[in-house]
C-alpha cells in the first residue's frame, strides 16, 4: 500500500499537481521522498489506486485519458483473485514505453508504475520476447531446458495481452513470428489462439479467460531461477519481469535442474504443472473393509459328491469376505467417513455370488493372458457414443447419438419388466420365487429401448445392484432409469451444458457427472440438487470416475490435467499433469493405490496416488484411448483405442520397484524407465472397430465393445 501511495505521489508530482500532492502527502503523513523497498506486489491495492488515480482531474494532454474505465468491463472477479493489475490501466498517449517512463532517479517507483502500464508499447513486445529468447538460447545447457518452459506461457500471455488491448496487427505479427518456436504438443492450443484475433472473440471463450486469470505453474531449480531473475532485472525494461510476476507461478526447488526428457514428461497441461503443495494432502487410498457375514455353505452341484441324495450337512461357515486382518489399514478411510447406504439382503446375495465367482477366477499374468470377447454394435452408423456393462456382465447398455439408450441382455435370460400393480397384488408374496413372479413374462425381450433424452447420450452407468441405469447427454441432464420397469424416474438438471460422463459409486446411491461447464458434480439419487461441486478445471471435464472406496473422485479434463477430489469436503487433493491432449479414460487399480489415464495423445500414464507422482508411461497406441480397465486382481491393464486395437500391459511389473525416496517425493522428479515394450503383453487388432469400452468379468474374461465403422 505504501508503495502505491508513493507511486501516486510521484505521479502527481510529475503531473504538476503540487497542491494535491501536498494534501495527499500530509494526509498520508509521508515526509520527503520515501521511496522504500522493492517492486511491490501491487495486486491487491489496484482497485484503490484506480480510484485515487481518477482523482487528479484529467491532466488531459500529457497523460492521455486516465483510462481506468476498462476495469469495469471485465469479467466479475472474485474477491480473492490475485491478479488484478490489468484491471487498472493508466493509458499513456503516444508511444511511451511503460518501463522506460521510469523517472531516472526513481527506478523503484517506476517499476510500480509500469505494473499499471501493462500494455507498454505493443510494438516492443516482439523485441522483449526475442530478447528473452536470445538470452535463454545462450544460457548453459543444463539451464536451457528449464528456462525454455517459459516460452509458451509468455508467448500466450503476451499475445492475449495484445489482443485484449485491441492491437490486432501487432498481435498478428507477434504470432506469426514466434508460434513456430513452441513445442509440438502445444500446437492445438496455438491453432485455437490463431483464431482469436479480436477482443470480442475472447469474451465467449471461457477457457482462454480462465487461462488469463490463473497462474501458469512452472517448476524451475533455484540456480536457473537466479539466472533468469538476474537477467531480467538488470535490463531497464521490466516488461517481461512484470508478466512473469503477474501470470506465472514459479515453484522453486533446490536441486539439480531437470533434463528436457523429465520436463517433457510432466508438462503439457493448460495450467503448467502442478505446484508441489497441491499434491501433498493426505489421501486415503485404501479400500473399505467388507462387512463380514455368514456365508452358507451351499450345494456345489458341480461337485456331485452327494448325488445319491445323502443329506448334506449344511454347516454355516463363517467366511471373512473382507480382509483377514483385524487392524485398520492406515491408508484406508474410516468406514463412516462418508455416509454409505447399508447392505440390503439382495446386496448380500450379490456378494455371495461375487465370492463364488471369484473363487473360480483365472489368475492372469504374462503367461496367462485373458481371452477377449468383443461385442460389436452393428448398424450404429457412427452413432454409438457410450457403453457400459454391469458388474456381473449380464447386461450391456449403449448410448447413441440419436438420444436413445438401448439395453441388451447378454445372457440367455431376457429382460423383463415388473407386472402392473393390479397383477402384483394377486401373486403370493410368501413364495420363494417371488422375485421371479413379479416379472411380467409378456414383456420379455432381449432389447429395451429407453427414450427421453433430447440429445446424444454421452455417458451411461449401471448401478451396482443392477436396479438403476444412469445416462447423461448433450441436453444437460442426467437421467435415472429403472431397470425393473424400464421407464425414466428422474432427470437431474444442474449442468446446463452437455454432460460428458457420469458414473455410479461402487456402493450405489451416489453418482458423479462432469460436463462442459468445467465442473464435476456429486449427486445422490434422492436429492434433486448436487451435493458437491468440484470446480477448478480450466476446460471441460471429460471423464469422471469413483475411487473403489467411494471417498474420492478422479476427473480428467480437456485442459489435460487429472484432478482427484475428496468427496467429504470437495477439496482437490491431487493434480496430475503430463498428458498432451484431453483425457478420455481413467481407471483405478483394484487395490486403490494407482490410477491409469489415457488421452488423445495415445499414451497411458500411471500415477501413484499416495505420493502424487507419475510412475509409468505406456506408449504404443497411435490414437485416442477411450477405454482402460484393470483386471480383477490388478495384474493386467487393458487399454482400448480408436486405432482399433486392444493392448494388454503388465501392471504388476509396472508398479513394482518404485523408487520413492525422499528426494523424489520432495521435488516430484521422476525418472521414467523406457520400458513400454517390456510391459506390453499383447496387441489385438479388430478389423475396423474402434474400442469404446472394456470390462473384465468376475472370472477375468475380458469383454470389449465397439461399433463397427466401415471406413
Amino acid at each position, binding site marked *: 500500500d505504501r508503495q502505491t501511495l508513493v507511486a501516486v505521489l510521484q505521479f502527481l508530482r510529475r503531473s504538476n499537481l503540487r497542491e494535491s500532492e501536498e494534501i495527499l502527502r500530509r494526509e498520508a503523513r509521508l515526509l520527503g521522498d520515501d521511496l522504500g523497498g522493492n517492486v511491490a506486489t501491487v495486486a491487491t491495492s489496484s482497485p484503490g489506486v484506480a480510484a485515487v488515480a481518477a482523482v487528479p482531474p484529467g491532466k488531459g494532454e500529457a497523460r492521455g485519458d486516465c483510462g481506468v474505465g476498462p476495469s469495469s468491463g471485465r*469479467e466479475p472477479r472474485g474477491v480473492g483473485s490475485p491478479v488484478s493489475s490489468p484491471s487498472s490501466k493508466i493509458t499513456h498517449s503516444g508511444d511511451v514505453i511503460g518501463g522506460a517512463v521510469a523517472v531516472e532517479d526513481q527506478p523503484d517507483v517506476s517499476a510500480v508504475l509500469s505494473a499499471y502500464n501493462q500494455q507498454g508499447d505493443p510494438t516492443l513486445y516482439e523485441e522483449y520476447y526475442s530478447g528473452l529468447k536470445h538470452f535463454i538460447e545462450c544460457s548453459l545447457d543444463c539451464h536451457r531446458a528449464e528456462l525454455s518452459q517459459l516460452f509458451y506461457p509468455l508467448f500466450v500471455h503476451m499475445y492475449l495481452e495484445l489482443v485484449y488491448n485491441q492491437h490486432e496487427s501487432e498481435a498478428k505479427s507477434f504470432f506469426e513470428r514466434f508460434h513456430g518456436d513452441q513445442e509440438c504438443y502445444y500446437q492445438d492450443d496455438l491453432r485455437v489462439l490463431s483464431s482469436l484475433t479480436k477482443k470480442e472473440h475472447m469474451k*465467449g471463450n471461457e477457457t482462454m479467460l480462465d487461462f488469463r*486469470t490463473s497462474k501458469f505453474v512452472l517448476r524451475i531449480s533455484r540456480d536457473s531461477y537466479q539466472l533468469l531473475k538476474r537477467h531480467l532485472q538488470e535490463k531497464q525494461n521490466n516488461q517481461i519481469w512484470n508478466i512473469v510476476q503477474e501470470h506465472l507461478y514459479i515453484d522453486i526447488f533446490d536441486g539439480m535442474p531437470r533434463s528436457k526428457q523429465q520436463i517433457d514428461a510432466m508438462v503439457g497441461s493448460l495450467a503448467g504443472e502442478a505446484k508441489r503443495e497441491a499434491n501433498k494432502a493426505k489421501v486415503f487410498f485404501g479400500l473399505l473393509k467388507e462387512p463380514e457375514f455368514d456365508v452358507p455353505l451351499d450345494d456345489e452341484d458341480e461337485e456331485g459328491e452327494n448325488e445319491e441324495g445323502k443329506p448334506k450337512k449344511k454347516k454355516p461357515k463363517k467366511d471373512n469376505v473382507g480382509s483377514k486382518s483385524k487392524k485398520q489399514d492406515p491408508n484406508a478411510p474410516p468406514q463412516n467417513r462418508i*455416509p454409505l447406504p447399508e447392505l440390503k439382503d439382495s446386496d448380500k446375495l450379490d456378494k455371495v455370488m461375487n465370492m463364488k465367482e471369484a473363487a473360480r477366477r483365472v489368475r492372469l499374468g504374462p503367461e496367462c493372458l485373458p481371452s477377449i470377447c468383443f461385442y460389436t454394435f452393428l448398424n450404429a452408423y457412427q452413432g454409438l457414443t457410450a457403453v457400459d456393462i454391469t458388474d456381473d456382465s449380464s447386461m450391456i447398455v449403449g448410448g447413441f447419438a440419436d438420444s436413445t439408450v438401448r439395453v441388451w441382455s447378454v445372457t440367455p435370460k431376457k429382460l423383463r419388466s415388473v407386472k402392473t*400393480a393390479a397383477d402384483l397384488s394377486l401373486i403370493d408374496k410368501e413364495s420363494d420365487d417371488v422375485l421371479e413372479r413379479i416379472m411380467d413374462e409378456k414383456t420379455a425381450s432381449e432389447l429395451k429401448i429407453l427414450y427421453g433424452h433430447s440429445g446424444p447420450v454421452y455417458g451411461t452407468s449401471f448401478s451396482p445392484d443392477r436396479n438403476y441405469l444412469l445416462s447423461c447427454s448433450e441436453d444437460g441432464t442426467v437421467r435415472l432409469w429403472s431397470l425393473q*420397469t424400464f421407464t425414466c424416474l428422474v432427470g437431474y438438471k444442474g449442468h446446463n451444458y452437455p454432460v460428458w460422463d457420469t458414473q455410479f459409486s461402487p456402493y450405489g446411491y451416489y453418482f458423479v457427472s462432469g460436463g462442459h461447464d468445467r465442473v464435476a458434480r456429486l449427486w445422490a439419487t434422492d436429492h434433486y440438487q448436487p451435493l458437491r461441486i468440484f*470446480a477448478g478445471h480450466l476446460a471441460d471435464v471429460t471423464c469422471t470416475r469413483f475411487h473403489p472406496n467411494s471417498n474420492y473422485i478422479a476427473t480428467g479434463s480437456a485442459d489435460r490435467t487429472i484432478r482427484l477430489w475428496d468427496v*467429504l469436503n*470437495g477439496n482437490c487433493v491431487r493434480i496430475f499433469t503430463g498428458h498432451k491432449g484431453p483425457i478420455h479414460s481413467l481407471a483405478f487399480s483394484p487395490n486403490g493405490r494407482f490410477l491409469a489415464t489415457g488421452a488423445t495423445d495415445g499414451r497411458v500414464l500411471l500415477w501413484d496416488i499416495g505420493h502424487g507422482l507419475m510412475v509409468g508411461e505406456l506408449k504404443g497406441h497411435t490414437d485416442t484411448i477411450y477405454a482402460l480397465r484393470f483386471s480383477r486382481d490388478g495384474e493386467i491393464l487393458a487399454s482400448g483405442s480408436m486405432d482399433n486395437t486392444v493392448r494388454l500391459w503388465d501392471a504388476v511389473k509396472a508398479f513394482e520397484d518404485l523408487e520413492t525416496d525422499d528426494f523424489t517425493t520432495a521435488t516430484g522428479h521422476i525418472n521414467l524407465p523406457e520400458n513400454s515394450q517390456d510391459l506390453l503383453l499383447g496387441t489385438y487388432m479388430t478389423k475396423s472397430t474402434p474400442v469404446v469400452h472394456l470390462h473384465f468379468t468376475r472370472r477375468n474374461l475380458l469383454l470389449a465393445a465397439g461399433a463397427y465403422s466401415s471406413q
Partner: protein
Amino acid sequence: MEAAKMASPKSAPKDAQVMAQILKDMGITEYEPRVINQMLEFAYRYVTTILEDAKIYSSHAKKSSVDADDVRLAIQCRTDQSFTSPPPRDFLLDIARQKNQTPLPLIKPYSGPRLPPDRYCLTAPNYRLKSLQKKVSSTAGRITVPRLSVGAVSSRPSTPTLGTPSGQAVSVSAKVGAPVSLAGQRFTVQIPSSQPAGKSATPTTPTVQNVLINPSLIGPKNILITTNMVPPGAADPNPLKRKHEDDDDYDAL
C-alpha cells in the same frame, strides 16, 4: 459414410471453397461433405439475423444507414441470447465453496427406492382426467344400469386395470396399489344400487357417493374408476339424458 474429400475447386461455389479453407485452417481434415453445407447454412442464417437486428437498431436510433455500432450491438444481444457460455471461474469457485461446506446428508436405512420428492421425479402422470361433477340421485326403486368408464391414472408400470363393465354385478374394487399413499385425496367410487326384482344375487351395496376427483392430487399408481350412474327409471327423458351424458363424457377437455 465415407470420409469426405474436399469439394473440388472447379465445381464448388466460392462460398464453399472459403468454408473448406476455413476448416483446413482450423485443423479439421476429415469431415463428411455435408458439413460444408451445414456450416454455410449456419453462417448465412447467423449473418442474416445479425444484420436484420442491426437494421432494427439503426432505424430505432433514426440513423440513415446501418453502421458498425449497430452491428456490434446486434452481435452482443444475440450472443447473450443464443450463445451462452458457461459461468466464469470465480463464480463457479464461489458456489462450489458454498455447496461443499454443508456436510453430506445421512442416509436413512430401509427407505425403499431412494428418489427425490415426487415433484422432482418424472413418475407423475402426464395427463389429466376430466373431473366428473355429477350429482347422483339416489332414489331407490330405479333400475340402474351402470356403465363404467374407467380411466387409469397410473404412470409407472401398471396398465390400467379395467373393471369389466358388467351390467349387474359390479364389484368395483377401488384397489390402489399398496405402496401408494392416498393422503389428501377424496376418492370414492360409485357403485350402483342394488337391482330390485331379484335380477341379481348380489347383495345390496348401498354405497352411493359422489366421485370427486381432484386430478392434480392424483399421485402415481392410482387406479381411478368412475362409474356413470344413470338411473334409467324415467322413461323418455332418460335415454336422451343418457345420451347427453354420453356426449358429456367424451367431451374434450
